[in-house]
């Protein structure tokens, strides 16, 4: 169980996040929506443990993976090395299988700069799932891709989540994405003390 209990988060005295509590059950997918600039990315960074300068408490598993808005790859290391260096316990065979899974078969020895943006995003997705994460965090993973590429990414993500069942937390602007991937949707709204939870709603299971 992932428990997030933030009392407050300030940037240079300006409150960004107010009192904010929610939980994500194992295998559950929670989408976070809200107006831009409200602090969604800040919230994700706190949950991931990247930003420790806040007042409150977050419980999360050690095996956490993050899909950033930008691919955030190591441009000076090969595609394969980008998986192996981040997951030292991973063997090259498993890494190649994962590359094939995201449609990057045979691209092991290329540098990330030689891939298209869509391919870089898929590599970043492969990197996240290689570590068998118990918690997956995604920050607008489908933004600034053309409709077709975004659809491919979305399908791929759906499939990988279904295979690996991590608890997933992701930020999106697009309600259709939220409806498709998420079990529940958390909406943030602004408040003088920083952003707070406006409500959490369940998404009707479309498959069932």
């Amino acid at each position, binding site marked *: 169980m992932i428990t997030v209990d933030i009392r407050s988060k300030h940037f240079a005295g300006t409150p960004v996040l107010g009192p904010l509590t929610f939980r994500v059950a194992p295998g559950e997918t929670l989408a976070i929506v809200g107006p831009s600039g409200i602090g969604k990315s800040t919230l994700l*960074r706190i949950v*991931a443990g*990247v930003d420790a300068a806040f007042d409150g408490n977050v419980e999360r598993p*050690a095996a*956490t993976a993050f899909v950033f808005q930008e691919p955030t790859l*190591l441009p*000076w*290391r090969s595609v394969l090395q980008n998986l192996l*260096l981040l997951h*030292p316990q991973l063997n090259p065979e498993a890494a190649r299988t994962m590359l094939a899974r995201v449609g990057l078969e045979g691209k092991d020895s290329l540098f990330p700069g030689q891939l298209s943006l869509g391919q870089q995003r898929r590599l970043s997705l492969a990197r996240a799932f290689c570590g068998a994460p118990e918690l997956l965090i995604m920050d607008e993973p489908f933004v600034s891709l053309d409709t077709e590429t975004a659809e491919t990414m979305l399908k791929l993500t759906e499939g990988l989540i279904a295979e690996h069942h991590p608890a997933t937390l992701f930020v999106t602007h697009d309600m259709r994405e939220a409806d498709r991937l998420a079990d529940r949707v958390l909406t943030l709204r602004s408040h003088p003390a920083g952003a707070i939870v406006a409500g959490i709603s369940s998404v009707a299971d479309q498959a069932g």
Partner: protein
Amino acid sequence: MTGARLTPVFSMIGLLALWVVAALLTDDTQILPTPWQLGPPFQQEVASGELLTHLGATIIRVIWAFTLAMTLGTALGLIMGRSAAVNAWLDPWLVVFLNLPALVLIVLCYLWIGLTEAAAITAVTLNKIPNVAVVIREGARALDPDLDAMSKVYRMSWLARMRHVVFPQLAPFIAAAARSGVAVIWKIVLVVEFLGRSSGVGFQIHLYFQLFDVAMVLVYAFSFICVMLLFEWLFLQPFERRARRWRTA
């Protein structure tokens, strides 16, 4: 294209021609010998083994000082670039050492440590560390915060983070510091040898300065310039090419 590639060659020929003209106009081997008049003294120094002995002594000092200055300067620059608090404390020191004349540091090291090899290498190293630190500090300030966050989320070890995330980003800064570093270091090593060592290119130049032998001074100076050119071509440029490979792929 061919013209552009040949420009450095023509430029060097121009410099050589200037030298020849100046030497012929001076018409005094004692003051400025022509390039071909350096041949016999060069052969004499190689045959007697003097040239290699002293060149070797200087190279060893340069290697020591270069390695120490690069290692300590990189560590210092990295820490100062990453931590504003450390930088606030150490920055005034850096300014003091940057502006301390090389000669003062050399004389003080000889006075405090004695006329030893350790004092010589310490003096050169202390002269160079601040320059390296300043360059690397700029690089450390420009490190990508997103990659930082990424390496944190994926729990990379300190060593892996340094090797695969930090140093590839610092590589252009390290190459710049190394290039300017090695040029400055060998010049300071010569001064150190001139003032207080009994071997090395600087010592020989001191000797032939007292004998007013311009030809020998030039022989030693050019020999070392050739060594530095080899270092540039065999070590620095291949390192840079390797570090840049991912950009051009």
